[in-house]
């Protein structure tokens, strides 16, 4: 599909869903207290904007996601390269990391709060943890499974270990690393909300929780839509940057 066609597709689909949403909300089958109309949600968003909360929440949440993502992603790439290419790290860390994988980020929130308090530290920790695992797994997989022909070609062309690593193994693994980063970014949002639901005083997750206490479903919808838009934009960002970075393998 051409970019214009794609944009049109997104617009039409969203308009369609909004119409159905509006029909359901005004049908009288469900109380509008529980299921607000699109209009009510728009007003709630405007209200949050005028109070200056909308963008300050956004900034706080994005900041947390970014810091957690950067820490988790850099560690994930580093450890992934190590466990894939060095026996010591593969044997020492591989089994442990595979044991960590099934532990969901939410389960770590209480531990994080005890360790780092209710400040920013615990949020960074939970987000970084989730991102780390996704990025590590993909980096490890991509780096461990570099096509044998590339390695053979590089060595018979006289490349030594360092050159083989930087000019062959890393580029060959790059498409997998980018996939890991993209997945990690999506998971960063997931764990961000988990971390903000308890022990926060700002951020999209906190605002959702705060709205629950006042049964403001309209405000909750604003938060959900924000998360949706942010996530989709971020994902597109990774697709575009990823395709530029690993231009020989389109996502």
């Amino acid at each position, binding site marked *: 599909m051409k970019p214009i066609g794609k944009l049109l597709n997104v617009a039409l689909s969203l308009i369609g869903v909004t119409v159905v949403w509006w029909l359901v909300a005004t049908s009288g089958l469900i109380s509008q207290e529980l299921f607000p109309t699109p209009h009510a949600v728009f007003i709630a968003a405007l209200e949050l904007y005028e109070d200056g909360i909308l963008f300050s929440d956004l900034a706080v949440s994005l900041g947390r996601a970014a810091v957690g993502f950067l820490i988790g992603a850099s560690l994930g790439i580093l450890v992934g390269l190590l466990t894939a290419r060095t026996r010591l790290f593969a044997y020492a860390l591989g089994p442990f990391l595979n044991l960590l994988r099934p532990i969901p980020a939410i389960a770590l929130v209480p531990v994080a709060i005890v360790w780092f308090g209710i400040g920013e530290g615990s949020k960074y920790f939970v987000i970084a943890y989730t991102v780390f695992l996704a990025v590590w797994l993909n980096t490890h997989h991509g780096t461990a499974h570099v096509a044998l022909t590339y390695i053979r070609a590089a*060595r018979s062309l006289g490349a030594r270990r360092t050159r083989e690593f930087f000019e062959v193994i890393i580029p060959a693994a790059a498409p997998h690393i980018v996939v890991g980063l993209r997945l990690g970014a999506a998971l960063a949002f997931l764990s961000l909300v988990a971390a903000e639901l308890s022990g926060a005083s700002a951020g999209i997750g906190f605002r959702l929780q705060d709205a629950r206490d006042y049964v403001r479903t309209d405000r909750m919808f604003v938060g959900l839509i924000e998360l949706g838009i942010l996530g989709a934009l971020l994902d597109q960002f990774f697709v575009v940057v990823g395709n530029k970075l690993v*231009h020989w393998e389109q996502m």
Partner: protein
Amino acid sequence: MTDPSRIAEPSRGPGRVEMEGLTITFKLPGGETLDAVKDVDLALEPGSFTALIGPSGCGKSTILNAIAGFVEISGGTIRIDRETVTGINPEVGVVFQQYALFPWFTAIGNVEFALKRLRLPKAERRDRAIEALREVGLEDRARTFPGQLSGGMKQRVALARTFASEPKVLLMDEPFGALDAQTRVSMQELLLRVWDMHRATVLFVTHDVDEALLLSDWAHVMSAGPGRIVESIDVDTPRPRKVDEVTEDFLDNRNRIMRLLRPDETGGGAEA
């Protein structure tokens, strides 16, 4: 066993490959073993062009991989200029069927990758890379990534990359196997032309009889189960050769090899 007078241009330069009693055994998943190559004696004279021909699974690629240092041998020896092969060696160039170009480097980047081991000044490295691409007629595609090149062009870049680092021995594993018939013919002519400039010792694995007879000084026919050489044919068609030139010798040799490749008539392939 190779008669030096047969070599198109007698060369005393380096690049002599000798295999004695070469045996390569693979362990199968069930714990059984398979003799991919058994007791092969073969010598490649410096600067000669040798073809290894045979059906799939006869061990011809395995021999090539052993000389390249990609697989461990189970018995016998391989020596290049009297030195036993113990691993991958940049003096031995390899051209792969699937090109093995690095898609993240441009055509010239791929060639320069090979030249880096020579530690030349940057400008000289660049010049030599362009020169190598010119030899295969691709200097105007220097900045193109392999993904934007056709199969034939990719293999030309791969040839340029391998020849640029001046290997003594050049191993080619069905390099034109993935190309269409027309591209294949022009690649064969190109290979002969470029080889004539560099004169490395070439071992060329193929299952195409015409290709073997067109290119080589010697054509060794292999049979499977276990992989061994069943016949060695001295191809004395004078050089330079032309693709469209069919001599009587060519047809005789062709018929001889065709008979050998029919498994039930060699007796060797029947057990496989």
